[in-house]
């Protein structure tokens, strides 16, 4: 026997990505532009969305402890800037497909907290009538194509929406979100090639939160910079600070604008971090406390909160009010979900076939 030499690099304390903290005085020209174009109202609204997602997920944790929610539960805390920044840069008639870590995406897409919470409770007013659960949020109204539980399984589906745009000659685009772990699946490769070959308006977004379950990216993928894969398909690749709302918005806004004119895919890697374990049942002990803390210091929400304060667009008091409003909204959503009935038993055999 050969010595039990590690195959992949050992999981050492990872080099934490550098995420400069937003501050009015140090805004980049691009960030300035975003602030100006968005303006107070929109930026505060986006901030509110992030807070909504955060509070929603916190409520989910409680609801899971109270057994109102069951099965797998993958939370979005830490990745809010990404979902909110990217999705707000898209149009309502664009398409979105994502993984099982879909609460934040659905909320950022405008699916109501009521419909989301009811889904988690397995009630008929859920966004999938209670039949999908946490991993399978769908909304025809919002062009949300799910909510997919098979890693990489949503990539071809999102690609299909981009194909449709090309087929009908519309200027819609398709946002295809995936985790870093999904990059190792064959679908990633097959779909990037097809999208590049046919010039489909697919925006492939890697939510690189540094881990696939307990596996650091360095133990799953052979390159550290995932945009290195883009040239292999002859497409554009961009890296963005996923903890930074303004940068995420800017990158997506620009990427979409150019694709509305002439379709083509792009690969966007957003460096982010999940504040919780992989799923509610994962203590996440494979990550050192200080590593988590380093990322909490660049919490995407507090970054914007500070900025809004510095801009004088949302002072301490208003911020408190906003948070209180959101908490009430979530409370209402939970009450709504609780009040919503389970699907009628006849639904067992409904929707098997159209």
């Amino acid at each position: 026997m050969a010595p039990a030499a590690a195959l992949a690099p050992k999981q050492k304390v990872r080099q934490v990505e550098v995420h400069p903290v937003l501050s009015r005085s140090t805004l980049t020209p691009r960030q300035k532009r975003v602030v100006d174009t968005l303006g107070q109202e929109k930026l505060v609204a986006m901030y509110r969305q992030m807070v909504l997602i955060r509070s929603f997920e916190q409520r989910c944790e409680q609801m899971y402890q109270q057994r109102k929610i069951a099965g797998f539960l993958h939370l979005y805390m830490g990745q809010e800037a990404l979902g909110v920044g990217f999705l707000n840069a898209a149009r309502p008639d664009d398409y979105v497909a994502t993984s099982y870590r879909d609460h934040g995406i659905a909320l950022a897409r405008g699916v109501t907290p009521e419909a989301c919470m009811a889904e988690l409770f397995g009630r008929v007013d859920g966004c999938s009538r209670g039949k999908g659960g946490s991993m399978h949020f769908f909304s025809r109204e919002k062009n949300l194509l799910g909510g997919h539980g098979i890693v990489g399984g949503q990539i071809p589906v999102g690609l299909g929406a981009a194909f449709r745009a090309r087929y009908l000659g519309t200027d819609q685009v398709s946002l295809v979100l995936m985790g870093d772990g999904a990059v190792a699946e064959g679908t990633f490769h097959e779909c990037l090639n097809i999208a590049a070959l046919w010039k489909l308006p697919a925006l492939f977004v890697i939510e690189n939160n540094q881990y696939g379950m307990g596996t650091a990216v360095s133990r799953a993928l052979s390159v550290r910079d995932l945009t290195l894969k883009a040239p292999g398909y002859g497409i554009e690749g961009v890296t963005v600070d996923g903890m930074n709302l303004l940068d995420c918005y800017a990158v997506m806004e620009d990427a979409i604008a150019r694709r509305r004119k002439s379709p083509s895919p792009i690969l966007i890697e957003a460096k982010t971090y999940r504040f919780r374990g992989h799923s509610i049942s994962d203590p996440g002990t494979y990550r050192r406390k200080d590593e988590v803390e380093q990322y909490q210091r660049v919490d995407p929400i507090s970054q914007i909160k500070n900025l809004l304060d510095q801009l004088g667009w949302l002072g301490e008091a208003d911020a408190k009010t906003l948070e209180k409003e959101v908490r009430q909204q979530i409370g209402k959503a939970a009450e709504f979900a609780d009040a919503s009935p389970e699907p009628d038993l006849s639904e067992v055999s409904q929707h098997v076939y159209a």
Partner: protein
Amino acid sequence: MDTQLITMREALNQAMVEEMERDSTVFLMGEEVGAYNGAYKVSQGMLERFGPLRVVDTPISENGFAGLAVGAAMTGLRPIVEFMSFNFALVAMDQIVSNAAKTLYMSGGQFPIPMVMRGPGGPAARVSAQHSNSLESLFAYFPGLMVVMPSTPADAKGLLKTAIRNDNPIVFIENELLYGVAGDVPKGEFLLPIGSAEVKREGRDVTVVAHSRMNHMLRSAEAEFLKAGIDLELIDPRTIKPLYIETIARSVRKTHRAVIVEEGHRFAGVGAEIADRVYTACFDDLDAPVVRVTATENPLPYAKNLEAASLPDVAQAIQACKAVLYRA
């Protein structure tokens, strides 16, 4: 009805062409379906007729383009995906099962998947182990999918047209060795309901159920059966799922005997399901246990003699009939 004598290949082509003329959201996608006119020429002339946007040549990425079709179907198009052969659908199994079959249900009814997956299945001639799978039982196992397997040009046209208009993901399995077989096919609009079995030959002695090439083989062997003194009643389920058992049960109540012939393997094959339903529906009518004739339990070998020994033939079917008639 005004009919034409055309091959299965032409019938399938006609069905696709007519439906694509009728509905601009229908498109064909697959390997070599366009410029090459199809590996088996089923899409002959379609690229020229409909252009490269509606007759799409794909890279060899089955899981990718099968899933692409699911996404296209979710957003309003009606894809026809051609698998050059269903053996290659194994590479796309996840998109077929996890997405095509389940999305309507998982989404609480929001996203129907009007999609046809078609291509040849089953053994061809001497193409060996990896190219000879009969996979109908695998697809039929999953709620959400429908499985259609015609054995005549007319059935092929009528069922494919219906399948393309149907709002569900449908696995439409053809047979390479039947592509060249000709038959009378109604001209123009001709639709057959999915889920209707057909008695291809009426007889008194024994009910024989067979689909796809096996049905064709037995249909063509009428003389041999008569010579063996067997007046068989031959039924073609035509659609494996939904399986219309009543046609079969009615026949068994008459003949009191049933033989099921399939080209696939035995273990949990389609015949196992049919047998189970026949026993349940006709327990008191059966004078003998149902006999199943299937491929032997081995991957299909290349050697001519071994291949022949592996696949069901007329002689075995006749033997089976004699067995249920207690004449063996």
